[in-house]
């Protein structure tokens, strides 16, 4: 929190200091109003914390922010409004801040989720420092912008992790070679997530989650109808109980570990066909478990309508079966996007999650609908 305030303060100071010069301001935003409700056979037994374990069925729609639907209609788990301002001081220097407000209970009304300074010395290089999104997956750094993807939400079997943002820096290089263009970046930093939202899903007690020593790199290649990306990330990990101030023991018996994540995604937009896919290995096997997760979605654009079928899967394995019971589930998703106006879309989506391992959310079906807009 402190670092967020600092970053926001620094931006404000920068903006004020250069007010005398001609500063170009650019404002933009996005919003999603999303409602949903679960249904299906009652599965009262589950592995979620008390606050989320109620009801007959439940569906975790946003692991990173603890957005959970139950068998009552709700607009709270996912609805959000984002506002972004960029101040361009010179062609090379700019500062950007993004505030996202969520309807979620127990979540601050609005948070500065992004605050960074960009230095772009030429067309190929850019350096950014401040608060950004951990670019763990293809959609990570725009997963709040519903308008930018075909579903109501990005597939949570891949996208559900405890740390979403980090403080640090990245260096990016982009270039094009004939019909191909590439963008690559290396990034590093750290994050201390106070009152971690993801941990709230599992523990009644408040937890802080630390990801010190984040380091990683990604590479994205684009050609006309094809976009492919690979990524590698590693960091240390520690979870601290807020009441005692002590680090929690992990299944391995250690209180601190190192994890790494790697994976890739392939997206195709060929005429009216669209394919969205991603494979990710999140390796916490040193201290807890290893996850293989993937999704594949196939859709077709009929004018303004884009129906899509998506399959996704989440599978844990562990070296510590005495202290950790691995989870396994899969989801099948049917979604329909309808584009209208200049920059808005409505979507309706049906999900069926089948929970087969150590039951966490429990088997459930979810019906949800969204109205997404960018401005």
């Amino acid at each position, binding site marked *: 929190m402190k670092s967020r305030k600092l970053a926001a303060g620094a931006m404000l100071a920068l903006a004020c200091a250069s007010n005398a010069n001609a500063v170009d301001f*650019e404002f*933009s935003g*996005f919003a999603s109003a999303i409602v949903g409700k679960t249904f299906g056979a009652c599965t009262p037994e589950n592995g979620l914390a008390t606050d989320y374990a109620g009801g007959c069925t439940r569906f975790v729609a946003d692991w990173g922010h603890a957005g959970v639907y139950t068998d009552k209609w709700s607009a709270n788990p996912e609805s959000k409004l*984002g506002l*972004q301002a*960029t101040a*361009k001081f010179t*062609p090379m220097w700019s500062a*950007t801040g*993004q505030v996202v407000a969520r309807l979620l209970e127990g979540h601050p009304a609005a948070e500065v989720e*992004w605050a*960074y300074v*960009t230095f772009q010395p*030429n*067309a*190929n290089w850019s350096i*950014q420092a401040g608060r*950004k*999104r951990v670019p763990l997956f293809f959609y990570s*750094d*725009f997963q*709040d*912008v519903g*308008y*930018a*993807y075909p579903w109501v939400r990005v597939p949570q079997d891949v996208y559900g992790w405890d740390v979403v943002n980090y403080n640090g820096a990245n260096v*990016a290089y*982009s*270039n*094009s070679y*004939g*019909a191909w*263009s590439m*963008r690559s970046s290396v990034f590093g930093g750290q994050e201390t997530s106070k009152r971690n939202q993801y941990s709230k899903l599992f523990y009644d007690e408040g937890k802080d989650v630390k990801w010190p020593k984040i380091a990683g790199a990604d590479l994205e290649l*684009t050609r*006309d109808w094809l976009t492919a990306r690979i990524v590698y990330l590693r960091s240390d990990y520690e979870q601290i109980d807020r009441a005692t101030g002590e680090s929690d023991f992990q299944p391995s018996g250690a209180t601190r570990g190192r994890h790494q994540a790697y994976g890739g995604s392939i997206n195709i*937009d060929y005429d009216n066909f669209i394919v969205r896919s991603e494979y990710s290995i999140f390796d916490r096997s040193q201290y807890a478990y290893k996850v293989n997760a993937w999704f594949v979605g196939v859709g077709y654009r009929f004018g*303004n309508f884009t129906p899509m079928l998506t399959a996704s899967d989440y599978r844990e394995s562990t070296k510590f079966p005495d202290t950790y019971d691995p989870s396994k589930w899969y989801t099948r998703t049917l979604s329909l996007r309808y*584009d209208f106006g*200049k*920059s808005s879309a409505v979507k309706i989506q049906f999900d069926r999650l089948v929970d087969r391992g150590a039951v966490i959310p429990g088997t459930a079906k979810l019906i949800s609908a969204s109205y997404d807009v*960018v401005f």
Partner: protein
Amino acid sequence: MTSTRILLASIAASFAVGAQAEVVVIVSAKSPVASVTADQVSQIYTGASTSLPGGGTATPLDREEGAAVREEFNSKVVGKSSQQLKALWSRLIFSGKGTRPRQMASAAEMKKAVAADPNAIGFIEKSELDNTVKAVLEAK
């Protein structure tokens, strides 16, 4: 059957008439750039690249949403629908990977902005060309 064929023929004819408004990609008359490929223009307008041939940083300029010349440019040169482009740019803008091209309200405004900036790149109907700007690519 015959009436269907006539209908189809007239639809095809109306598309052909619509396609006659040719779009040209323009840079400033003072720019050293002599020609660009459709791939290069597509990369610039999808945010995949900001490099102009010759090494400069491109400043792409767009027209207002709904402008006929914009639809033509998007489909023939960039190869994406306006909606696809909007979704693409939403990603870039909100993840700090690019800033949305400035929108010009008319061909005159587009030409004026392009003429004034050697790094600018824009598009107009071929019939709007004058000596302040030069065509570096013609939409096929």
